[in-house]
C-alpha cells in the first residue's frame, strides 16, 4: 500500500460536500483512474493527495512519509515568460538543486516526452499537445514516485489525446510510477488504467472499484478488442446504476 483514504470527508466553506466518507487504498505502481461526472469530487480527491487542501474529517494515510509528487493540471499552466527548459526546471529551482544536476534532469525529462529539440522555445510557439508534454516533463523532472493528473488531456483533439495516452502508458510502464488520473472519459480510463474507481456526485462517493489488470500492454488494437468494449460497458454500468439511485 502506498496511500489510503480513511473515511475522508471534504466539505467546502460554502457547505458543499465534495467527498463523503470515502475510503480506498492505492498500491505502489497502480495506474488508478478516478472516473465520474463533474461535481463528484474527483479533482478534490487529487488535491487532497497533493496536500493542496485538507480533509474536513477522516485522514489520508501514507505508507511512510509522503513521497515526491508530480501534478499535471487540466491546463498546461506554463510560465509564458520563459523557455520550455526553464519551465521544466521550475520544481528543481524551487528545491534549490544545483545547476548541473538540474540540467541533466531537465534533459532527461524533455527526452521522455520527446521535446528535446524545443528546450529553447517559448510556450506560445508550441501546440496544445506540446504544451501538455512540457507540463508532463515538468512533473517528471522532480522525479516523483506518484504522479497526479487532473483531466490533463480533456482540452486536446482526439488524435493528440490518443497519442499522449499511449505515451503515458509507456512512461508508467518504464518509469515505475504510481499514477492517479482524473477523467470523465470512460474510454480513456479503460485504455489507461490498471484500476478504475467510479465516483458518484453530490456528495462524492466511490461506487465501484474495477480492476483492469490484463492486458499489460495496450495499443490501438486494444481499442477495438471485445475485452475493451466489455470493460467500457462495465464502467458505464457502474456510472449508471448510480444515476438511477
Amino acid at each position: 500500500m502506498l496511500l489510503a483514504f480513511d473515511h475522508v470527508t471534504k466539505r467546502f466553506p460554502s457547505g458543499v460536500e465534495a467527498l463523503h466518507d470515502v475510503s480506498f487504498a492505492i498500491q505502489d505502481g497502480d495506474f488508478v483512474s478516478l472516473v465520474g461526472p463533474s461535481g463528484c469530487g474527483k479533482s478534490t480527491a487529487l488535491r487532497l493527495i497533493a496536500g493542496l487542501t485538507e480533509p474536513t474529517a477522516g485522514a489520508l494515510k501514507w505508507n511512510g512519509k509522503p513521497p515526491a509528487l508530480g501534478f499535471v493540471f487540466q491546463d498546461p499552466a506554463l510560465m509564458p515568460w520563459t523557455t520550455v527548459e526553464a519551465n521544466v526546471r521550475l520544481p528543481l529551482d524551487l528545491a534549490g538543486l544545483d545547476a548541473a544536476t538540474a540540467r541533466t534532469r531537465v534533459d532527461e525529462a524533455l527526452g521522455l516526452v520527446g521535446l528535446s529539440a524545443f528546450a529553447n522555445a517559448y510556450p506560445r510557439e508550441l501546440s496544445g499537445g506540446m504544451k501538455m508534454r512540457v507540463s508532463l516533463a515538468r512533473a517528471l523532472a522532480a522525479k516523483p514516485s506518484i504522479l497526479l493528473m487532473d483531466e490533463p488531456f480533456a482540452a486536446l483533439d482526439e488524435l493528440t489525446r490518443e497519442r499522449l495516452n499511449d505515451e503515458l502508458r509507456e512512461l508508467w510502464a518504464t518509469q515505475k510510477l504510481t499514477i492517479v488520473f482524473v477523467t470523465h472519459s470512460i474510454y480513456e480510463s479503460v485504455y489507461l488504467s490498471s484500476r478504475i474507481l467510479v465516483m458518484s456526485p453530490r456528495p462524492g462517493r466511490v461506487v465501484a472499484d474495477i480492476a483492469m489488470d490484463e492486458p499489460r500492454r495496450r495499443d490501438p488494437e486494444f481499442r477495438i478488442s471485445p475485452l475493451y468494449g466489455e470493460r467500457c460497458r462495465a464502467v458505464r454500468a457502474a456510472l449508471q446504476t448510480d444515476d438511477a439511485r
Partner: protein
Amino acid sequence: MNRDHILAYALPALVAVAVVLGWEWAVAAFEVQPFVLPAPSAIVAAGIENWSSLMASAWITIRTTLAAFAIALTLGVALAVIFSQSRMIERAFLPYAVTLQVTPIVAIAPLVAIWVGLDNGETAVLVLAVIVAFFPILANTTLGLRSADRQLHELFDLYRATRWQRLVRLQFPAALPYLLAGMKIAGGLALIGTVVAELSAGTGTSTGLAWRISEGTNRLQMAKVFAALALLSAIGIAIYALLSWIERQALKRWHESARPRE
C-alpha cells in the same frame, strides 16, 4: 519596410508639412499679429536666437522629469510589493494613495512649495511631479502582482516555494506587462507633473521650460513660447517612444500584446 510601414510615417509627415505651410501663408495673408500667433519661420528664428537659454531650461525640465519618474517607479513598485504581501497593509494605505492621486496637484503645489522652502523651487517641483507620476505605477503593479495564474500558484504551493521565490519567479514576471503599461503612463505624467509644478510652485530658482513659457507670455514673446512648447512636445514624444521600445523589447518573445498579427 513594407507599404504600410512607409505610409505610417509618410502620412503624418505630409500633414505636418501641409499645416506648417498653411500656417505660414495664413499668418502673412491675414496679417496676424505676432503676439497672437507667430509664423512658423518666426518660431524657428526665436528658437535659434534663444537656443542656449531654451536648452538650459529644457535640461532642467528633463532632469526633473527623469528624477521624478525614477523615484515614482521605485516608490510605486516597492509599495505594490508590500501591498502584495499583506492585504491588511493594502487596505490600510491604498485609500490614501488614491486620495493623493485625485487631489488636484495645482491645489497642493503652494503647500509643498512652502514645506520644502521657497528657495528650493526645484525640490518642490520634483516632489509634486513624483506625486503625479507614482500612482499608475502603484496601481498597475499591484494589479499585476495579483494576476498570476491560479494553477501556477498551486504549483508553487505544491513545491513549497518560499514567499520570495513566489514573488521573484511568479508574481514579478506576471506583473511585468502591467508595470510596463504603467510606466508608459507615468512617463507622460512625470513630464506633465513637472510642467504643472513649475508653473504653480516654480520660483526664480527653477527655470525649466514652463518658466520660459510663462516668462515669454508675460512679455508677449509668443515665438519664444511656441519654441519652448515645441521642445516640451519633443521631450514627451521621446519619453513615450523610449518606454514603448523598452516594453516591446521586454515582451516580444512571450506576451500576446507583442505578437504580430497574422
